[in-house]
């Protein structure tokens, strides 16, 4: 692997800065005068985006309460605006609203430049201009009093999959069952952690996904992602199972077979199919949430499995401030199949492992400050490889993993927000495929920890348009660390930094 020279890196960085300098004023000039249109909820209620967002896309306490009430104003069950058109009679007629009160579009584009210790196939160190990166189309609102719907289709232009457009959220919501605030039921696909104190995956300004080749096992992770690492699965060596011939699960070399240690998983991931109930039966300060997620077991003959979770959140308000603390517990039985690959093909453990996740989060907002953090821990059963001896049985595993993500944002002016984020992942799962004594080349642990520090500047020429620049520095990159497979740099240490300028806008 040939390393980039200092001057090559400097040139790349300079060109990306130049592009940013050119792009930001152009976006500013072309958007600031015309950025009066705002997304559907804002249109529907004639509100500024900042009523519900600290700055979009991050929700403030009122936006959280709006979401909690099934996308109805807190304390109301509006069923849409009263100015809807009534077509036909009162009994059999249809009431229709302006479609712009229900439909919105979110566009994200950016210029990324990552610096690596060693060059890796598929990862360029040149500025990568991606316009657009992601397009989201929303269709959401209230159909009737206390019946809401939310559909969000996301198209990721960088996703190599044939079907790159997914419904990131698609759900029906039945609000205020039995009594106001007592029980709201969500059915469909959503992120279970939407009510958790740490802003969800989708409330981040453009999380950068990992670059990985999943066509092999173990998968080649060419570049780690830049997203809240506490959300990630953290476990090396786990798969969705299905090694047996004819198994219904994905096979080695197929999309979705390997569980990437760096991808958002379980409670803190989007597109989870299930049902949840939340409400405030214990008073206005305490929010409960219970739910189930439907998935498939990692057995050779997969069965439907139902993961379950419970979350509690305590809110308290003061002068110009809001404090909340949350805790959750998520359990998934037969969730993963531990697998090792010594070069002679994948060897699966005797049995699947159960996976438990729990987490704590706190968020404090006071005047211009918004500070939040989460600690999320994962545990799996100890893998058993009696049938795969000696290779699989010789592997060593760590059954615990944890992650921390902490961010602080400061609203410098109405238009400028500065932030810093720290992410740490203490990895778990497969440590070594075999004892070091059997193979001296394997002189490093596979499940390498990762930690990143980011500085973030955001500029909002209009509440619905965010321009940002982020610099992420990999705190683990100071020490050269070969991969456990020998040779290449471990992905957790290979990325030294990531510089991103981008735009996130919603209409």
């Amino acid at each position: 692997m040939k390393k980039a020279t200092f001057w090559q890196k400097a040139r790349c960085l300079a060109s990306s800065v130049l592009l940013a300098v050119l792009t930001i004023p152009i976006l500013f000039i072309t958007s600031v005068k015309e950025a009066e249109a705002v997304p559907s909820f804002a249109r529907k209620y004639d509100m500024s985006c900042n009523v519900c967002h600290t700055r979009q896309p991050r929700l403030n306490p009122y936006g959280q309460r709006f979401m909690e009430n099934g996308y109805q104003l807190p304390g109301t069950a509006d069923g849409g605006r009263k100015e809807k058109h009534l077509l036909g009679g009162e009994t059999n007629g249809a009431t229709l609203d302006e479609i712009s009160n229900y439909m919105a579009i979110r566009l994200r584009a950016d210029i990324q430049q990552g610096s690596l210790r060693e060059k890796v196939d598929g990862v360029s160190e040149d500025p990568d201009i991606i316009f657009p990166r992601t397009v989201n189309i929303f269709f959401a609102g209230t159909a009737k009093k206390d019946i809401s719907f939310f559909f969000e289709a996301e198209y990721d232009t960088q996703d190599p999959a044939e079907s790159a457009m997914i419904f990131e959220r698609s759900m029906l919501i039945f609000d205020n069952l039995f009594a106001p605030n007592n029980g709201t039921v969500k059915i469909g696909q959503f992120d279970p952690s939407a009510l958790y104190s740490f802003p969800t995956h989708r409330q981040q300004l453009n999380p950068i996904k990992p670059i990985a080749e999943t066509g092999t096992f173990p998968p080649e992770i060419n570049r780690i992602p830049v997203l809240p690492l506490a959300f990630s699965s953290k476990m090396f060596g786990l798969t969705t199972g299905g090694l047996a011939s004819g198994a219904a699960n994905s096979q080695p070399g197929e999309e979705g077979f390997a569980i990437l240690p760096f991808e958002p998983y379980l409670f803190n991931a989007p597109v989870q199919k299930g049902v949840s109930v939340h409400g405030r039966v214990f008073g206005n300060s305490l929010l409960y949430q219970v739910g189930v997620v439907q998935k498939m077991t990692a057995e050779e003959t997969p069965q439907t499995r139902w993961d379950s979770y419970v979350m509690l959140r305590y809110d308290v308000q003061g002068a110009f401030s809001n404090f909340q603390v949350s805790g959750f517990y998520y359990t998934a039985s037969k969730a993963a199949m531990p697998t090792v690959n010594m070069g002679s093909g994948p060897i699966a453990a005797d049995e699947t492992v159960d996976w438990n996740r729990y987490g704590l989060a706190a968020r404090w907002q006071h005047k211009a400050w918004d500070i939040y953090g989460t600690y999320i821990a994962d545990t799996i059963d100890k893998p058993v490889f009696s049938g795969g001896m000696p290779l699989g049985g010789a592997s060593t595993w760590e059954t615990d993993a944890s992650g921390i993500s902490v961010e602080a944002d400061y609203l410098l002016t109405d238009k400028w927000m500065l932030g810093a984020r720290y992410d740490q992942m203490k990895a778990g799962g497969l440590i070594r495929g075999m004892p070091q004594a059997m193979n001296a080349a394997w002189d490093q642990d596979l499940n390498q920890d990762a930690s990143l520090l980011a500085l973030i500047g955001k500029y909002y020429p209009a509440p619905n348009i965010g321009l940002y620049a982020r610099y992420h520095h990999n705190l683990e990159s100071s020490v050269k660390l070969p991969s456990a497979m020998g040779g290449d740099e471990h992905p957790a240490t290979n990325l030294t930094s990531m510089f991103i300028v981008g735009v996130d806008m919603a209409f």
Partner: protein
Amino acid sequence: MKKYTRFICSLSAAMVLSIVTSFPGAAQAAEAKAKAKPAELPIKVSPYKKRPEENAKSVAEGRVIYENACIYCHGVEAKGDGPVAFYLSRDTAPRPRDLTSGIYKFRSTASGELPMDEDIFRTITRGVTGFMPGFEGMAPADRWKLVYYVKSLVPDFKEVTDPQIIKMVGTVIPSSAVSIRRGYDVYQQFKCWECHGGGGRGDGKKASTLKDDWGFPLPPRDLTRLSSFKNGSAPADVYRTVMAGFDGGAMPSYADFFEGSEKDVWHLVNYVRSLSE
């Protein structure tokens, strides 16, 4: 390539659908909606007949509703210091109102007076465009309880027995070229342009110097955007705004200046509303 084509087709269809159904655009649609609102005469004592009794129990129930719906902006002690207040506006007015101050922007009473119950009810129902949502989806009885709770925060409400109500003299004068022309003259005569600008775009020479009672910069309203009028855009709403002013804000009451020539206010209303046409 296939997936791009499919996506572009889907996106195009969605955009066409959106354009066809909401043409000529969200802003115009909102303005059309605003224009369609009936001229609600705020001096009618009780347009909302079914109101619960005002007593300690309804005030307490109002407090519960407040904690559910209002606390995030107006704050625990209703001093306008909720956690969202700063995000709503870091550097400029309007901030959420301090409901304990006894200073009310939206009234049909004389400047300096406390508002009528109906004024508070109307503000809760309609909201303030751009800043406070309208709670028309809240049960009317709950809105009344909220009114009672808000009143309980200001002891002076108990002493008001005969509020000085802005008189709405005459009926709405239909808009016409003659009326608009007269309204233009009134606009010039009372120097509305000093703040709102010659074209009504909120860019008058004093615009950048205006502040509210709490010292926050408060840019005057762009009168060419009917849908953004915070106190409503129906003729009666604009009339009320001109005559009552915005206590705590920069817009003064012109009731004394127009005494005996209230017809000119209706002409001014027609001129102001014509700016967005």
